[in-house]
C-alpha cells in the first residue's frame, strides 16, 4: 500500500463553545477519490478550512506528503500542491473567465514586480505560456468559448466549473471539492462526475464534500462519514451504506429533517 498523501491525526476545532471538529483522524491514499459526507454542521467544510489553513487547528496534526502543514499559511499549502473550490463560490468577478484561471498559474510562474513593471523578455514569454496553459484548463472543463467573458456573467453551474479549472491551473496533487454539485442540474452533475473521474485518471487525488449520494457513491473509492464533528464510519461506499450507525444517524436525521 502506498504512503498516505494526506493524513489528519486527532484534529480538533471549536468556535467558541461549539466543537465543529472533534478529534478526527483520517488518511487519503494517493490517486483515489475520497468523499466526506455527513449531515449539515457535521464539520465537513471546517475540515477543508483546516486542511487549507484558513483556520488554525486547536489540536492535532495534518501532514501532506512529507510536510507537516501546521504553521504553514494558506498560500504556502497551495504552493505544495493543495487546491480547493468553495461551496459558496469565490470567483474573481472583477476579471474575465480566462484571467481567473491565469491566477491559478501564479504559483508556477515567477515574474516579480520589477520584471512585470519593465516587461522583460522573460516575463513576456512567461505571460504567453500562462495564457496557453490557462486556456488548456478551460478546454478541459468545456469553458474555452467563454474565455473572454466577465467571470460574473457565467451561469452558476459554469462558475463551479470555472473554480475547478482555476484549481487545475495550479497543477494540484490534492484537489478539495466542496459541494461541487450543489445547484447543478442532472446533465451538469453527470458531466461533473465524468470530469472528476478523468481528473483521477490524470493522477490527481480528490477529497470531495458532497450531499448528493448518487454522485458520492458512484465515483468515490472510499467514504468518510462525519456526525457532530466526529468520525462515524469510513470504508467503501457499499460498506458505509450498509453500516447501521450511518443509517441510523445520517439517513435517520435526514428523514427527520424532511
Amino acid at each position, binding site marked *: 500500500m502506498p504512503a498516505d498523501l494526506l493524513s489528519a491525526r486527532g484534529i480538533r476545532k471549536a468556535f467558541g463553545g461549539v466543537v465543529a471538529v472533534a478529534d478526527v483522524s483520517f488518511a487519503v491514499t494517493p490517486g483515489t477519490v475520497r468523499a466526506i459526507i455527513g449531515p449539515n454542521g457535521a464539520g465537513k467544510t471546517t475540515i477543508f478550512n483546516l486542511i487549507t489553513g484558513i483556520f488554525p487547528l486547536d489540536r492535532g496534526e495534518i501532514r501532506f506528503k512529507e510536510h507537516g502543514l501546521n504553521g504553514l499559511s*494558506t498560500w504556502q499549502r*497551495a504552493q505544495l500542491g493543495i487546491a480547493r473550490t468553495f461551496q459558496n463560490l469565490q470567483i474573481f468577478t472583477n476579471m474575465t473567465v480566462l484571467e481567473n484561471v491565469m491566477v491559478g498559474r*501564479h504559483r508556477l510562474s515567477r515574474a516579480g514586480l520589477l520584471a512585470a513593471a519593465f516587461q522583460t523578455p522573460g516575463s513576456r514569454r512567461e505571460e504567453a505560456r500562462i495564457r496557453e496553459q490557462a486556456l488548456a484548463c478551460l478546454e478541459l472543463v468545456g469553458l474555452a468559448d467563454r474565455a473572454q467573458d466577465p467571470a460574473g456573467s457565467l451561469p452558476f453551474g459554469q462558475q463551479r466549473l470555472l473554480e475547478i479549472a482555476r484549481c487545475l491551473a495550479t497543477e494540484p496533487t490534492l484537489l478539495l471539492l466542496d459541494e461541487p454539485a450543489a445547484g447543478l442540474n442532472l446533465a451538469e452533475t453527470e458531466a461533473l462526475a465524468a470530469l472528476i473521474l478523468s481528473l483521477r485518471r490524470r493522477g490527481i487525488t480528490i477529497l470531495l464534500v458532497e450531499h448528493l449520494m448518487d454522485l458520492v457513491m458512484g465515483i468515490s473509492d472510499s467514504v468518510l462519514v462525519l456526525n457532530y464533528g466526529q468520525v462515524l464510519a469510513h470504508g467503501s461506499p457499499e460498506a458505509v451504506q450498509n453500516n447501521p450507525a450511518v443509517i441510523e444517524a445520517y439517513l435517520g436525521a435526514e428523514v427527520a429533517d424532511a
Partner: protein
Amino acid sequence: MKVWAFVGGVVVLALIPVFVRTPSYLDVLIYIGLYSIVTTGLCLLTGYAGQISLGQAAFYGLGAYTSAILTVSYDVPSPLALIAGIILTAAVAYGFGIPILKLKGHYLAMATLAFGIIVYLAFVEFKEFTGGPSGIPGVPPFSLFGFRFDSDTKRYYLTTGAALLTLLVARNVVNSRIGRALRSIHGSEVAAETLGVDTARQKLQVFALSAAMASLAGSLYAHHLSLVSPTAFNFVASIEFVVMAAVGGLASIWGAPFGAAAITILAEAIRRVMPLLLSYASGEHEVIAYGVILVVIMIFMPEGLVAGLRAALARGRERL
C-alpha cells in the same frame, strides 16, 4: 488602436507648450502631471488591489522633503536625491505596511489617515531637518546631466514625461502576473490565498510601489516650487488624491490622469469664476461649489469620468 491613442495623446501633450504660453496655465498643467503620478499609484493600490490609503500625501511629502534636504543642505545632485527619496519612501511604506496592511476597509483607512497626520506633524516639529512650519526655501531646479529644468515649459515636459512613464509602468504591472494577483486579492482574498498568492506580500509590494510613485511626484514638486512646507502634505491633500482617483475612475489606470486633470482644473476654474459670479466670494464659497460639483459627478458617473464618458460615447454611437 490603443497604441495610436497613446501616441496621439503624447503628441498633443508635447505640443501644448507651443500654444499655451501663459505661465499660470503651464503651472496648472505641471500640477496635473504631478497629481496624476500620485493618483496612478493610488489607482493600483485601491482600484486593483482593493486597499485604501488616506495617507498618500505623507509619501508625497517624504519625497519632497528628501529632495529638498539633500539638495539644499548636502548639495546632492537632484536625480540622486530623487532616487534616495523613492528608496526611503518605499522602505517606510513597506515597514509601516507590515502591521497595518493586516487591517481591512475602514480600519485600514483610519490607520493610513493616522500615519499621514503623524508624518505631517513630523514635518512641522522636526525643525532642525525640515525648517518647521515655514519649510525649506531655495530648492534648486531639477537638473539632469547638466541640463537645468529652470523654466515652466521645461518643467512641464519633465513632469508630463514622468507621468507618462509612471502610467506605462502601471500598465505593465496591471497586465502581468502581479497585476492579476492584485486583482485577485480585491476579488476574493481567501481564493487568492488558496491559489498560492502570498496576499500579505503582494499588498506590501503595491503599497510600497504607490508610495514610490507619490515620492517621485513629491521630489519633482519640490524642484518645481523651489520650496517645501508642511501644509502641502496635510491630510486634506491625501483626501484630494483619493478624490482624484475616484473621479477619474478606479477600474482603470487611465482614469488617474483624467481625475487629476478634472479636479485640478475644476479647483482652478472655481477660483477664477466665483469672484465674477459672487462679488463677496471667499475661499469657503469655493469649497461649497467644489463639493457640489463633485457630488454631481459621482451621482451621474459613479464609476468615474473615464467609464462614464465611455458609456456616453457608446450610447451616442448606438443612436447614430
